[in-house]
């Protein structure tokens, strides 16, 4: 490689700050990390003496575990700060929380927060690199990287692949980051869901296709990704019932046949079996849903390694 991308000290707010070449560099690094995770002794000393803080202002056991496991496997010290937003808004501000944490000598923050843009605030207050672990409906770059890694590992070059993402597009940060990353790498992405769950200007903002009919959306897809449908959207008046949603948008043996024969089946989890996806598909040979989780640790290790300048 003639021009090695520089990651030292950089934050990962979203994938729009990263070029296609940089994204590929991260994926290559993740490949190496995945190999470590398959060893009997899953630990390397590369980040010894560094302290990583998981700052989770929104509940997420799975993502937090993935970050913490990634940090531990690189031998970094991990501290965890958890709060819910109601406690935070009554008491200490995010600013003061970060000042407090920073006084303890944090080298890297991994943040999950319900407010879009909060990772940028953590960076502003701490001056330290920040990995966005999901900020509201805005972005979830590590999820997108692990999704892209999973596809790349199975199908090779992303360019020209037809990827269809189905579900609650409006409320999904996973879709937004995936669209940025996948489009940068040259995939053709189609998003599909009911009109009431589709943000406006999707084509203009992301250069994707928008379909409201599942059958059309799945046509010739190489990859099909389902998204979690949350029950509370029903009470918000966005769709009439889960039953009706399922009838039109569930990924099942019946609907998936419009995609390519061996199309990869993906889901960022947690799944609502029987609502957006049926077990017959989720647990099928084509499904890489469980592998996505494993790849999540590898991708997060790669980012931490690159940002903190780990030594091989």
């Amino acid at each position: 490689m003639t021009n090695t991308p520089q990651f030292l000290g950089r934050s990962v707010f979203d994938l729009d700050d990263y070029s296609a070449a940089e994204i590929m560099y991260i994926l290559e690094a993740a490949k190496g990390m995945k190999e470590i995770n398959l060893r009997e002794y899953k630990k390397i000393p590369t980040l010894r003496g560094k302290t990583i803080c998981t700052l989770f202002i929104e509940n997420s056991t799975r993502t937090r575990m993935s970050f913490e496991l990634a940090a531990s496997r690189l031998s970094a010290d991990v501290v965890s700060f958890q709060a819910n937003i109601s406690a935070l808004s009554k008491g200490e501000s995010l600013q003061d929380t970060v000042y407090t944490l920073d006084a303890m000598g944090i080298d890297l923050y991994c943040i999950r927060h319900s407010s879009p843009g909060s990772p940028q605030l953590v960076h502003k207050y701490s001056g330290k690199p920040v990995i966005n672990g999901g900020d509201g409906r805005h972005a979830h770059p590590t999820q997108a990287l692990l999704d892209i890694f999973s596809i790349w590992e199975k199908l090779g070059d992303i360019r020209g692949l037809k990827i269809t993402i189905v579900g609650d597009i409006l409320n999904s940060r996973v879709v937004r980051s995936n669209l940025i990353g996948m489009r940068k790498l040259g995939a053709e992405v189609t998003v599909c869901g009911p009109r009431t769950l589709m943000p406006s200007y999707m084509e203009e903002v992301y250069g994707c296709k928008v379909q409201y009919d599942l059958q059309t959306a799945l046509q010739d897809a190489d990859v099909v990704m389902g998204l979690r449908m949350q029950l509370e959207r029903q009470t918000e008046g966005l769709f009439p019932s889960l039953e009706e949603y399922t009838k039109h948008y569930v990924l099942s043996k019946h609907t998936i046949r419009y995609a390519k024969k061996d199309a990869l089946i993906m889901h960022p989890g947690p799944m609502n079996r029987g609502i957006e996806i049926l077990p017959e598909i989720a647990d099928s040979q084509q499904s890489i849903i469980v592998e996505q989780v494993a790849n999540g640790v590898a991708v997060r290790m790669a980012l931490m390694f690159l940002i903190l300048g780990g030594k091989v």
Partner: protein
Amino acid sequence: MKTLIKNGKTFFDDNFVRKDILIEDERIIRIAGQITDPADQVIDATSKIVTPGFVDIHTHLRDPGQTYKEDIITGTLSAAKGGFTSICAMPNTEPVVDNIATVEYIQRRAKDLGYCKVYVIGALSKDLEGKEIAEMATMQQGGIVAVTDDGKCIQNAKLMLNCMRYAVNFNLPVISHAEDYNLAGKGQIHSGKVATQLGLSGIPALAEEVIIARDIMLAESAKAHLHIAHISTAKSLELVRRAKENGLKVTCEVTPHHLLLTEEACLTFDTNTKMKPPLRSEADRLACVQALADGLIDCIATDHAPHADYEKEREFDLAPFGIIGFESAFAVLYQDLVKPGHLTLERLIETLTSAPAKLLNLKAGILAENSPADLCIIDLGDTVLIDSDSILSKSKNTPWLGQTLAGKVTHTICGGKITWQAEPAAETNEPT
């Protein structure tokens, strides 16, 4: 006490002409090409423009109740620095201005301590709750100049109709902050491309437009003067255009930020780009500029809305709506609308002075013999820095923070007294 303003390009009869102005106590006593009368104080306005003091019919002084954000002293001082000599205070204070005692409190404080004339706008509904009509008639005896629930919007059409019918009785204009709560929901910024990109909930243009459409119909029925606050969308303007064409007494104002900024400004997650109505699309912005130029929009108002640093310095969706406006208003509009040729300087001055004064029947906004000595002197060749050290408002929440803008108000004179002066005092000897 006589003050003479010499050699300025004076905004007189809607034109800039070289005229001197002689002030005695609170009044302008002469405007003429050359005045050589003796005066206690002479201000040399050579190479500057002299305009009527600016009038802002939409401001939040936060006093009483939220004086950590602003109070009548800092609010009027900030207004004076921006060239304002008459401002209208919105009723969403604590307590709400829905009673004569609060009206009188604000007026008395402003008169005793203020740096600019403050007119009070009363609430439409008690406690701004949108449930019962406020005591408009009593408040009018105390001097209110209009009624509104600004910051809130009466959702109940029947109550709004009755408020209008009641206000008509007392010749009070009804100001509408148009926002349908269901459509606006938990929206943070304009429902457009940027909201999609940032994953922030959107406030659709429709949230404003459906209420404007409703209020125009209600005002027609009630025969009320309806004034639309901070209009922000192209379709809202179409609604007002049709209402005006139909001969209804419907007027509207626009803020500097809706004339100059769009949703794109929110991409940085700067909470000083968060206000209601939100910054809209470029097409909406251009429609507002056009409508201001062609007269469809009646006047400019800042919607000066101070919030403490620590309230704005937080997660975007948890920060309050609103920005301050006094000190940057003229400069941003001059720099970004007049200098590039989108608006004439004459129209800018008119919409900052006589136009808003006329809307609410304020004795302000013109330079004429025997009119109040409210005026400001501006050096168009000089610049003004908007930063947290120089801002006189208690709050610093402006999207123009840190910027140097063209067009500096060097003097503001209100009721014959200098309320703001950017430079060392003028000579007080008799002119030679």
